[in-house]
Each structure stands twice: as C-alpha cells, then as structure tokens.
C-alpha cells in the first residue's frame, strides 16, 4: 500500500515539476543567446492556454487525431510511475523493469507516428517516417545499455539497479557503468527530440521531426501532446541523473525522506536540464542521415560497456 502511495506521489511530483524543467531549459537557452526569454513559468501558462482553446479536426483525419495524444500522455504517465524518480519503491506486481519501460515509451512513439500519418499531409508523413527510423535505430542502444547496467546487479529492474549503485559508489565509476550512462544520454537526446537529432524550436516544416507530426493538433490535443513529450523528457532525464547520482531517493513514506527526495530530484533534474540547454546553444542539428552514425557510436559505447562488464568485471 505504501508503495502505491509513493508511486502516486511520484507521478504527481513529476507532473508538477515537468513544465518548470522545460521552462528552465528554454530560459537558459534564451539568456545564453542574448534574449530575454518568456520566463520560467511560461510552459504552465502554455498548457493552461491550450486547454482552454478549441481543438480542430481537419477533414480526412480519423479517431487517431483524438486518441493518439491521450495514448501518448497516459504512456508517459506510466513511464513516470515506473521509473525510480522520487522513490525506489515499486508495486510488487509491476516492477520497474527496464524492458517494460522501454515498451511503454514505444507505445507513445507509435501513437505519435500514427498521428503524423493520420492527417494525410506530406509533413506529417515525413515527420512520422523520420521519427520511426530514429526510434528503430535507437532501440539497439537502449536495450544494450539496459543490458550493461543489469549485468552487475543481475536484474533488469530499475529500482534495484539504482539501489545497488547507491549502496556502492565504486559501481558508479566503473568503466562499464560510465560507458552505459554516456550511451543512455545520447538515447535520451534522440528519444526526446533534442539537438543534435531534432530541433525542438524549429519553425521550418522540412526540417521537422517531432513538430511535423503534431502540426494538425490544436487546443487540448496539442496540450496533451506537449505534456506527454515533456513527461518523457522528465522520466528519461530523471532516470539518467538517478543512475549517475543514485542518492537521495526515498524508499519509505517518512515525510522527511520524501521531502529530501523531492528536493534532490528537482535539483538534479533542473541542473541537468540547464546543462543540456546550455550545450544546445553551441550545437547545430546534424543532417538526418548523419544521425545513424551518432546512434551507431552510442551503440558501440553500450556494447563496450557490456563486454567490459563481462570480461573485465
């Protein structure tokens, strides 16, 4: 029962903190580029505005236009519930198994891709095609880094991996562990549509990946899509920071421990988000057909991590 309570709390905290994370990332980027920026709270205002606006339905679109945003949102919420962000506790019948988490992310990916195809425009199809290609090529890296992380612990359950890393600092700084985390960072960038894979603030249809698929959505559909994508960012980034710095998570419902856990998550997330945004200022989007090279590179890192933990561990 305590686990259920902790998981609900984690979902609430993550959902509340997510727009702030996006706000921080946008604001850091704006300031470093010499702009004033819209303020840290702008994403909250965006969501409120979108929810109050009238959703449109283009001719020729099907129920996917309505369903896909909701599917993306719910799948992201599930990921947030399963990944150890605030707590390492988990509901016994639904452990935070990494393969399950990856499949849930894929449900969101598929929902977005179908949404892109649904409208029947060239831009939607283009975005959808690119999106799925990247998703397909990211998959080997994701599973390989999962594999590398699971070897020393003997389990692919995320909570146990994080706990084991937290209990023994030497695990965090092994070559295998570091390689796997670096590979995961590339995965996170690709999965959440950040530079250098996709430019989240592009306005040019021909270069769009994520934005191309959601062109037809408006009002609350768009709000769900935005929230869903942001939650993915929170979950994945939160996972990486908790793997790299596996301390401060609560495993009981003590108020003090929870407070510390929430504060620790907030600090880790916002700092990591700020760093990514700062790095993005100095980076350009790579050509679409160079993306496979980037992903192949991260795959090699993950593969090395696996063999290192077998042969050197």
């Amino acid at each position, binding site marked *: 029962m305590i686990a259920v309570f902790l998981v609900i709390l984690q979902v609430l905290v993550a959902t509340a903190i997510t727009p702030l994370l996006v706000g921080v990332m946008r604001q850091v980027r704006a300031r470093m580029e010499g702009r004033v920026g819209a303020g840290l709270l702008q994403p909250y205002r965006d969501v409120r505005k979108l929810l109050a606006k009238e959703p*449109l339905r283009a001719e020729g679109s099907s129920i996917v236009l309505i369903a896909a945003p909701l599917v993306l949102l719910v799948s992201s919420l599930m990921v947030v519930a399963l990944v150890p962000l605030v707590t390492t506790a988990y509901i016994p019948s639904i452990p935070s198994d990494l393969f399950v988490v990856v499949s849930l992310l894929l449900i969101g990916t598929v929902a977005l891709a179908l949404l892109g195809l*649904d409208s029947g*425009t060239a831009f939607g199809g283009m975005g959808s095609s690119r999106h799925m290609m990247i998703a*397909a090529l990211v998959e*080997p890296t994701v599973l390989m880094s999962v594999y590398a992380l699971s070897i020393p612990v003997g389990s692919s359950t995320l909570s146990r991996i994080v706990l084991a890393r937290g209990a023994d600092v030497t695990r965090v700084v092994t070559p295998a562990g570091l390689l796997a985390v670096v590979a995961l960072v590339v995965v996170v960038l690709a999965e959440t549509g950040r530079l250098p894979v996709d430019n989240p603030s592009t306005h040019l249809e021909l270069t769009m990946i994520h934005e191309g698929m959601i062109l037809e959505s408006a009002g*609350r559909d768009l709000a769900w899509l935005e929230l869903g994508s942001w939650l993915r960012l929170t979950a994945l980034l939160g996972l990486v920071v908790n793997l790299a710095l596996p301390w401060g998570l609560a495993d009981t419902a003590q108020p003090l421990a929870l407070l510390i856990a929430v504060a620790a998550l907030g600090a880790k997330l916002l700092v990591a988000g700020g760093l990514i945004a700062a790095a993005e200022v100095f980076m350009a989007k790579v050509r679409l057909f160079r993306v496979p090279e980037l992903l192949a590179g991260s795959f090699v890192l993950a593969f090395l991590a696996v063999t290192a933990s077998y042969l050197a561990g």
Partner: protein
Amino acid sequence: MGIGIAGIFTGAAAITSPPRAALVIPIAVPGGLGLDPLLLSPTPLGGVFCIVVGAVGAVAALYGIGYAHGPAASRTGWSAFALFLLGMIMVTAAGDVVSFLLGWETMAVASSVLVLADHAERPAVRPAAAWYAVMTHLSFLALATGFALLASKAHSTTFARIADAGITGPTGIAAFLLLLVGFATKAGLVPLHVWLPRAHPEAPSHVSAVMSAAMVKMGVYGIILLTSSWLPTVSRPFAVLVLGLGVVSGSYGILQASITSDLKRLLAYSTTENVGLAVTAVGVGMLLSNAGQPEVASIAFVAALLLVVSHAAFKTVLFLGAGTILKATGERDLDRLGGLARTHPVTAWTFGLAAMGASALPITSGFVAEWTLLQAVVHGDGRANTMLALALPVTLGLLALTIGLGLLTFVKAFGMAFLARPRSDAAASPSPEFTSRPGTAAMGVAQVLGALSVWGLGLAAGPVATAFSSVLGYSGIVTSEMGGLRLVTIGVLDPVALGILALGLALPVGLLVLVLRRRVPRRATDLAWGCGGVRTSPRMEYTATSYAEPLVRVFGEALRPSRSLEVSQLGDDRVLESRVAFAQELTDIVEDRWYAPAARWLRIVGDQARRIQNGSIHRYLGFSFAALVLVLVVVTLP
C-alpha cells in the same frame, strides 16, 4: 463449402486432442518391407503445435467461407485445404519417421495446390508456385536423406529409438546438417527463405494465413525436436549456427519487410523475422545449456514456444486483414491504399491489434514472448565464458534492431492502409466490409476471434507460459498474481496489473477531457496544414515507399536498391524538362547473389546432361549394361 466446415472440424478436433496428447496412443498400421509400424503418438510438445495448427486452421476456414472464390472455393480447393491441415496435424502427432514424412509431404503437396488456386486469373502465381514447389521438395529431399541416415544407424524408424540410439560421429553430423537444412527451408530461414515472399502473396489470403501462421512452424517444431530429442549431443557444437540462422533471419527478414510496399509480401518477410526470433530463442537456449546454465536456458526454450504461439495468433489476423483489403479494393500495394479505417472499422481494429502484437507492444502476446526472450538473453552469465560474452550482446543488439524495425514496419503497414486519405480510386471507393452475404459476417467473426486471441494470450501470460514450461518439463516459470508471469529469481511481468495501472492513470485524464469537452467543443475544419498552399491532393501524401526511403538510404549497403532516373528534355532545350521518371526496384539480395548463380549453374549442368540422352536405343542399352555391371561390382565388394 461443406468441406470447409470439415476443415473447421479437423481444427476443432485438433484443439480437443491435447488432453489426450498427454497419453500415448499408438495407432499401429502394419508396414511392409521390414519397416516399423506407422506410429502416431502425440507428445505434449507436438500437442502445442497441434493446437496452433488446429486453431489457425479453424479460424482461417471460417474466414474462407466468405473469402474464398473461384478455384479456392471449389470442392478441390476445400479438400486440399482439409488435407493441408490434416498433413500438419499428422506431422505434429507423428511418432516415427515414415508417418512424419507422410504428413510432411501431404502438407507440402496440398499447400502447393492451394498456392496455385488463382493461376488462371493471375499469371504471376505460376512462378511463385514453382519456386514454392521446388524449395519445399528440396526440403523434403534433405529431410528424407537425413532421416534415412538416422534410421540406418538406429536400426529403427521410431523417434523414441532414434533418440535412445544416441547417434554421434560423422553420420550424426551429416544427418544433423541435412535435417537442419530441411527444416530451415520449411521455416523460411535466411538464406532458404526465398519461397516465402513469393508464395505467401500469391496464395489466397486464408491459405497464406495457414501457411504463415501454422505451416512454417513445422520447421521450428522440427528444429526443436532435432536439437532436444533426436541428436542432442551432435547439435551441441552447432548452437552458434542455429543462433546465427535465427538472428540473421530475424534482422534480414524485418529489414526486407520494412522497405517493401506490397502488404502481403511485407507480412511474408515478417514471418521470416518471427520464425527467426523463435529459432534465436532455441539457439540461445542451446548455448546456455551448453554453458551449464539450465535455468535460464529453460526460459529461452519457453520463449521460443511463446513466440511460436503469439506469431500464429497475430499473423493469422494480419493475413486475414490483408485478405479483406484485397477483396475490398483489389489492391495489396500500400502505395495505393489509405483511409480504410472509415469504411472497414472491424478490419482496422483487428489489424491494428494484431500489428501491436507483431511490434511486441504491451499488452499483447508478442510483448510477453519478446520480453521473455530478452530476459533469457540478459540473464545468461557470460563472465566465465568468452563465447557467451560475445554471442549474447551481439544477439541482443540484433534482436533490438529487429524489434525497432518491426515497429516501423507495422506503423507503416497500419498507417498506410487505414489512415490518411485514399491514394487511389480503388481505395477511395472500396466494396463494403459486410454485405448481405452471410459469408462476410463469418470473415468478420474470424478476424475478431483472432484478434481476441492475440489479446488474451497477452493478458494471460502466466498460465500460458506455465503450461509451456510444463510441456517442456521445466519449472523455472510460474504464474504470479492476476495471471502474470514470474521467472523464478529473475522477474515478474504482469500485463493485467500493467493494464490496471494504465486505467488508473487514464482515469483523471479522461475526467479532465470530459469536462473540457463540455466547455470547449471540437470544431471541424476542412483544410490540413499545407504550408499555406492550396488544397493538397492525395498524390502529395507520403506513401509506403517514401516512408521507408530513409531506411533504404541507411541500409543502402545491405539492400542495394536499383534506381533509375529518366529525364526527358523539352524539345532541344537543355534546361527545361518535360518529364522526370523515377523508378526504384528493391530485390532480395540473397536471391540475386546466391540463387541466380545457382540456377545458371544448374542450367549449364542440365544442358551438358542432355547430351547423354540422344535418343539412340543402343546407347541406352549400353547404359543399362553399365549400370548392371556397376551394381554387381558394388554387391561383390566386402
């Protein structure tokens, strides 16, 4: 039509047989020539495959009532269908070599007849059927030779005696390789898969469903029997070969599937992929049991069975869905389809659910199966074993690529066929999903039944996997609460709990949507965003080919597409162009590189061999005499 019902009864009888399957029922037929009597003694493992055949056969026959037309609906067509099912059931029940081969050949011949059904309408059927007949008989030849070697060593044709004989040595190796080739051909593993993408698209859809969902599984059944029961000691060193066959088939199959735009060809290549995954699981299991890790190995073997059953479920539905599309529009080219979700909602839902199964998304059967396989790979311990330390990560990498490309393939298949706007006139005005003919209702019922099984197998993961592990005699897998699946000491997967979590999280979102829907209603607009342009025509939509274009580029080295770009100039003008024609052809590289030379070589040999037959009676008499002398010499040798 009556024989169609008979087909269903054959299937239904097969479903009820597994309870009896635990007992051994020898049906002895006196055999001449010193052979052992024919023996039909279903084993529990055979029972699993028997259920697959029966269930797929019954659903496909039900669908066939409405779908089959022309020769496939004739009395010959239906009796071939029934014989086809009967042959497969005989294979699963066979307890000795002769009845196994008898069933195998019945299945091969009956299915060849069925593939040929539409040859009068479409000439393209004939070469496909020829490829199929040739490959399937090469497979039979390899099997017959392999079994002959085994039987001569074991001095018996029953499987039990062959297993007891513990055959090793060169004979064992030769027999193993021959049998492996035979089974791999039937299973459609690369590089012996070439008949699959030809025969499946050309056969009537309900037949394709049975061929793809049930018949190729006979190859997997054979490989499992070969490695676990008939020649376990010989096959140990070949674990990597089996694993390699599986992994290469998986990734190559899905890569071809992801770039093709013919819906049924796509499904056929995806069959190669899925059979590849099942064989991968067998290979992983063999490798792990060689390395002395029987617990994890047993999980891999259970994963193989889960993959087989889940593929049977979703591939049946996918082929039936493709059949409905073909019937409604006359098209199976995804580049010319679109928007069918509006006119064919039942097909769209069932195909969508099955496509989820094929892309291994929760909470379908495919997800459970691939999760189990991945767990087996990840939990193999490679620390003390360099072979494992290299083989397992490579396997996982290729498996992951297979899963990723599978996702793209089925997003493409579903999205192109059912979403967006129709890309051709045929797709714009399809014939209705249900007509007053009662047969069309049977089609819908068959599709829904199949889709429900995809879902049911995914939800009841625990009981299904427990049943399989008891079939294989393992105990590493037990049911956890709410029908979940618990791999002892590894982890739990509970699709029902996952579903409850999803519902719990969807509840507040849904309530919010309800409130908002009252406050701000949705408005229909006519235009989709065209970059400020005027009304875009369906010709500007993305097609299946353009969807896969990035992949063709990325994997250009492996696929070698042949492209031609023809630009015709306007008069003598060098700058203005009147017409640009672009053509791209994707061929199967295995076929071009290996089969084409082999066929050329065969032709040369055949031409040479023709010289022997010059029609002269004297020469033929000379040949007979020479043969006689040769036989006498051989006989007199010690």
